[in-house]
């Protein structure tokens, strides 16, 4: 029994150790802290800081570096993938049941704070409400951020009329805010959905032609003489033209040019801006805005990126070269937001590529639509393992191309030579080919394309042989290809011998294509057009069936 138990314990130990022995035979350790200051990393023993815990096993198997959820009980935030030791050292509450924070304390709900909303935990909601001095309004029945933000209809605003310094004045606030004023002011009364400028209210607040931007909102608003925000700016609905517009509150959808394409950008008469359509309220700037607002100082600023000809929110792909997938070339994503273009590099060595699509509206032609791009993984790794064309070109699984390898194979059924195709990366990945250490596998990768093909020739016994026997130095022979003729070319060598029946005119080109498709291999120019170190594709020499590149 003891023996069985010993074997069992030994097996468990070995199973936990084995995966942590690197290919070079070095055991990796779970370091509580590395010499560089990183916590809970799987690395070599010498990289661990002195006097910290280090065990030759995976960090998941240790108690100190096991990953869990770190919960901040004060702020209500939850951080995923946190090692126990890191969380505890920082004063957090660690929970090892779920590294992805799928625990009750971290369940998210919708926190409504005034006219704002945040998709947070209940504790965080209480904390945020306290910070803003508002009552907690937490809705656990809302399960996603979009619905949460959409639910910020909030309490209806209205005119809160009250007496102040013998004047009947007014504020545009919510009912609860108005109720809270009753302890401080006389004659407080709330009129839901009504503006302070309504004549019936008889307040000192009157209409103006001034406008303003409101924090957290996109539109340009009229303001009244008391400084209250009124309806959305519409130059055709000033008080002298439309008194009703200064009596009650109008919804965004009832205001001028609602959902107008472009969001009324640079429209001097309508302030119904829309961030998602590409405009937002800003103070008029003659250098940035094409039109003066007819009234006030604010306008819907166009958020498009004119210099790039892109709309606000568009993303598109670019590269640092026209010679895609050459050494040094990389993919980038450009992003146009708020009139500014930012560049996001995709992962280096073309381990990520940039893909782009276009959303076309009715009547739009290609190139005029709304472009959307993303960096995505370059899934080239298993291309070479694919032997079937359909598998190779399965874009759900990989990014590969099916090309002729330059090799021919005899098909016993058809009794003919057939092209052998291979599956290669569609986007040749980059290698650290300059790294000659063992860490780099670029040489191995490129060597896959190396091959030797020996063509066999024969010639018939003829008068030239007789001349050769008598020692004629100018004997010239004619050789006829018999085997592997797909990898030689017809022609003459420097001794004047003629080679015939070769079929491999494009053999070297095919091999080159295969080689260069594997990655940063073979005769290539880099992304700025510089010739490679060992090869020059301009100097390909084919000499009587034997082709090679020269420096």
């Amino acid at each position, binding site marked *: 029994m003891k023996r069985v138990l010993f074997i069992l314990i030994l097996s468990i130990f070995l199973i936990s150790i084995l995966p942590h022995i690197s290919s070079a035979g070095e055991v990796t350790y779970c370091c509580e802290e*590395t010499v560089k*200051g*990183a*916590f*809970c*990393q*799987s*690395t070599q023993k010498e990289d661990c800081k002195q006097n910290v815990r280090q065990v030759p096993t995976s*960090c998941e198997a240790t108690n100190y*570096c096991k*990953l869990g959820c*770190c919960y*901040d009980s*004060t*702020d209500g*935030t*939850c*951080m*995923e*993938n*946190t*090692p126990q030791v*890191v*969380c505890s050292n*920082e*004063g*957090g509450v660690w929970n090892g049941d779920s590294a*992805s*924070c799928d625990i009750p304390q971290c369940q998210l709900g919708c926190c409504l704070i005034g006219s704002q909303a945040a998709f947070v935990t209940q504790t965080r909601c209480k904390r*945020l409400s306290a*910070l*803003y001095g508002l009552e907690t309004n937490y809705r656990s029945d809302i399960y996603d*951020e979009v619905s949460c*933000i959409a639910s910020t209809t909030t309490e209806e605003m209205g005119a809160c009329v009250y007496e102040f310094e013998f004047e009947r004045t007014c504020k545009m606030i919510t009912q609860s805010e108005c109720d809270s004023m009753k302890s401080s002011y006389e004659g407080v009364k709330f009129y839901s959905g009504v503006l302070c400028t309504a004549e019936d209210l008889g307040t000192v607040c009157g209409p103006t032609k001034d406008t303003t931007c409101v924090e957290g909102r*996109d539109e340009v608003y009229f303001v009244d003489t008391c400084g209250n925000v009124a309806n959305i700016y519409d130059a055709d609905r000033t008080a002298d033209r439309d008194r009703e517009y200064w009596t009650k509150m109008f919804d965004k959808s009832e205001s001028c040019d609602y959902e107008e394409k472009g969001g009324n950008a640079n429209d001097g008469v309508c302030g119904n801006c829309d961030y*998602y359509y590409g405009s937002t309220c800003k103070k008029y700037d003659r250098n940035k805005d094409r039109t003066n607002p007819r009234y006030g100082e604010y306008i819907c600023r166009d958020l498009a990126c004119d210099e790039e000809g892109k709309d606000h*929110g568009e*993303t598109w792909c670019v590269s640092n070269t026209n010679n895609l997938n050459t050494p040094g070339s990389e993919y980038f994503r450009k992003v146009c*937001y*708020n009139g*500014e273009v*930012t560049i*996001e*590099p*995709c*992962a*280096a*060595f073309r*381990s*990520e590529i940039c893909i782009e699509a276009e959303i076309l509206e009715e009547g739009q032609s290609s190139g005029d639509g709304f472009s959307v791009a993303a*960096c995505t*993984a370059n899934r080239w*790794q298993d291309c070479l393992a694919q032997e079937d064309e359909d598998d190779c070109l399965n874009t759900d699984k990989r990014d590969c191309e099916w090309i002729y390898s330059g090799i021919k194979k005899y098909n016993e059924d058809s009794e003919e030579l057939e092209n052998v195709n291979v599956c290669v990366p569609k986007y040749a*990945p980059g*290698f*650290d080919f300059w790294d000659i250490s063992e860490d*780099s*596998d*670029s040489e191995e*990768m490129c060597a896959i394309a190396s091959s030797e093909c020996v063509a066999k020739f024969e010639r018939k016994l003829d008068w030239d042989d007789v001349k050769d026997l008598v020692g004629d130095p100018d004997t010239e022979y004619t050789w006829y290809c018999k085997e592997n003729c797909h990898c030689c070319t017809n022609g003459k060598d420097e001794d004047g011998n003629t080679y015939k029946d070769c079929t491999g005119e494009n053999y070297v080109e095919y091999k080159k294509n295969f080689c260069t498709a594997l990655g940063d291999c073979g005769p290539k120019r880099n992304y700025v057009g510089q010739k490679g170190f060992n090869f020059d594709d301009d100097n390909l020499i084919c000499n009587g069936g034997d082709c090679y590149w020269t420096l």
Partner: protein
Amino acid sequence: MKKRRGQVTIFVIIAVVIIAAALLIYFLVPGVNNIFSTSSENPYQFIQSCLEDDLVDNIITLSDKGGSLQPEHYILYNGETIEYLCYTNEYYRTCVMQQPMLKKHIEEELKVKLNQKIRDCFTGLEQTFKEKGYRTTLNTGDYGVELLPKRVIIEFNHSLALTKDDTENYDKFSVVINNNLYELVSIANSILNWEARYGDAETTSYMNYYHDLKVEKKKQSDGSTIYILTDRNTQDKFQFATRSVAWPPGI
């Protein structure tokens, strides 16, 4: 000509009367001199102006470095050392959180860094009032730095009694600066959770939700990513580094 000279004289007299009246009001009416007094004459303002520049400078430094004034585990980017807040040294694996209590960590960093300056400021405060003939009694307690929505605040449990003819007590010392670090740190936490779960975060989704926010993502050749969060209105910035689901060159 004589008439014009007379007018000038009247204007000069009026000006002298106005200045004299203003001086009388300033010195005789209680409270007015407090309104116009310089920061050195109001203990609260003295502390605010003594500390705010240092607080702002340290916040800027710390925001550029990923939340630590002297990052230990960092990446060098544009000459700046930026702390890794989520990191793995391995390829293909999601990162391990390195700074789960970022807000608290920043508050601690600021508290420690400003310790000496705070002491100097309160010493300077006492000295200033002693020179003005006050007898001062300063009781120093603890203090705390807190990141709050749209502001950063230092609150002190210090009290100061100034005695001359009578005694004035000051016990609500605080320093407040306007800054969006709280908001930027909250967004950084969200990005870090995405990095820890998926190895990447989508910048545009944050810019769709927060209209004044700019999120930049700069991937580096070693698989690290620098995130730069900027408030477009205030230009407040917070940048940090991660390394998650890194891809090696080749296989």
